[in-house]
């Protein structure tokens, strides 16, 4: 059986937690399956970042073309690494990188792909992937074929692995060039408020219905001593700035209170707020996924509840 390959991801603050979660799980599975683990990392400093990972081997692609993340260049390198190492499983965090590389590699190398994986379970030497689909309303239990598969793993799926390893380190270089070029990477605009620093967030989703209703959220946030954040559709509609967005492509927040109003709780959103100390969800659909993550929930109309709550908190 081939090794378990983990495609690692790093940010300015180091290897991502999602990567470390994959490393921890890969080690556990490799032990029962009797195989090894290999971590692949891109970019300058990859060797230094990866050399303490608890894997058997590290492959680092550091040179020239890897100066910034370029999806097509990284895919070219990954395709080659997979051709050479023939992994049984290739695990990639289900981030932008995972969406780029997972499906691209699957198509190019004709390897089945299991997306949105939230668990990998072993029984009698066979692996079943659990995949979150239909915005978290159903789980798919997918038997991993004997020849293996690629899995893109949702952040937050497992505990993070420890960085106590002493892997063999290999660097690769070659022509991975592509017709794609990264012109520049832009830091997020600093918004008027930093939602990652707020203790209390009043977060609004599609249920706000119209920008005309945003003052209700502002007034409630003010009465609570918090600030307003939101889910992706509210930003896409242009009703609130990007700096206010919680979730996979927005900010990860960990406030003392997250009051989710009219947010259904797609996995991409939960990724950004599930670690809040207290989550209260307001959603007319009692079956909405947000209720799985929330400590308290209510199905009353958020547009009625927000002013009623603001009035009480103002002492009125």
């Amino acid at each position: 059986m081939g090794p378990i390959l983990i495609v690692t991801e790093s940010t300015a603050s180091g290897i991502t937690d999602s990567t470390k979660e994959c490393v921890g799980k890969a080690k556990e599975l490799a032990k029962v399956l009797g195989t090894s683990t290999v971590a692949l990392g891109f970019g300058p400093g990859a060797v230094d970042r990866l050399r303490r990972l608890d894997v058997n081997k590290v492959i680092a692609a550091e040179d020239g073309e890897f100066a910034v993340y370029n999806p097509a260049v990284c895919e070219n390198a990954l395709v080659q690494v997979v051709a050479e190492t023939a992994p049984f499983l290739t695990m990639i965090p289900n981030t932008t990188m995972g969406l780029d590389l997972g499906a691209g590699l699957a198509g190019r190398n004709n390897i089945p792909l299991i997306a949105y994986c939230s668990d990998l379970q072993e029984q009698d030497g066979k692996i079943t992937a659990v995949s979150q689909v239909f915005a978290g309303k159903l789980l798919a239990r997918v038997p991993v074929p004997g020849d293996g598969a690629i899995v893109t793993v949702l952040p937050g799926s497992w505990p993070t692995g420890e960085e106590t390893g002493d892997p063999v380190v290999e660097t690769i270089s070659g022509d991975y060039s592509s017709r794609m070029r990264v012109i520049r990477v832009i830091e997020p605009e600093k918004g008027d408020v930093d939602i990652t620093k707020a203790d209390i967030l009043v977060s609004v989703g599609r249920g706000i219905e119209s920008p005309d209703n945003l003052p209700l959220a502002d007034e409630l946030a003010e009465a609570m001593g918090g600030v307003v954040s939101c889910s992706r559709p509210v930003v896409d509609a242009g009703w609130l700035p990007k700096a206010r967005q919680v979730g996979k492509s927005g900010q990860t927040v960990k406030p003392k209170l997250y009051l989710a109003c009219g947010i259904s709780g797609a996995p991409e959103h939960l990724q950004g707020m599930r670690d809040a100390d207290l989550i209260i969800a307001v959603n007319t659909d009692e079956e909405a996924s947000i209720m799985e993550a929330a400590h308290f929930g209510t199905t009353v109309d958020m547009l009625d509840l927000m002013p009623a709550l603001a009035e009480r908190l103002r002492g009125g």
Partner: protein
Amino acid sequence: MRVAVLLKAVPDLVEELVLDEESGSLQYDEMSYVPSEWDDQALEEALILKEESGAQVTAIAVSTGDVDTMLFTALAKGADHVVKITGDFDASMSNWQQARVLSDYVREQDFDMVLSGVQAIDDVDGQIPGLVAGFLNWPHASVVTEVRMGGDSKVLLRQEYSGGLVAEIEVESPVVIGVQAARKPPRYASVAKVRQVAKSVAIEEVSAGAPAGPAFADIQFVRPVAAGRAEMIEGDVDAVADRIVQILADHNLLRRA
């Protein structure tokens, strides 16, 4: 510049997902379907490109059910041409197979750019744009929020990462792009306009064989058992507001002077 927009229909989450709990199989025939919302974003971005630079937009769907309304709606919104790929397909067709059929068609047609939704709610076996790119061996970027024409058949993209980082990317066509969001909210086409288009314009039908490819033998669907589930606060708005104030007090979150 010829732009293909790949559309698919997915089960409507507003309705119930019909599951045979015993076998774990989805009852595809008993569910209602809506266009995948990310595909709608991809179509919008393509139509913005058309307005800006005269791109020719073709919307394509695999006939896994009734996709005609979705295609007529694309026409009513401004697509130049619509194609339905027909064959022995149904709503249970995997993304892998749909991507195969779509990439075969795209390869023949000399498109410069393929846009599709970055993901869909039912993508258990992968996302259509990435798979299509892989099959075609074209460069691909996902989570894209802006597509513009540069000079010399180059395309300019904005790709988003977590934490709000954005990369500006230049790529020579042909290219496949997984669209997260268009620059503007998707436009609306009235039912009357869609009906009018349906009477005056025909959908091009292209037939295709059933593709092979790795398929997962038996995917079982289950409803998630919540590890922890919200304690529901019952009562009318006033009762709920009172209870929330109490919860905030219990957690030392009241800042009333």
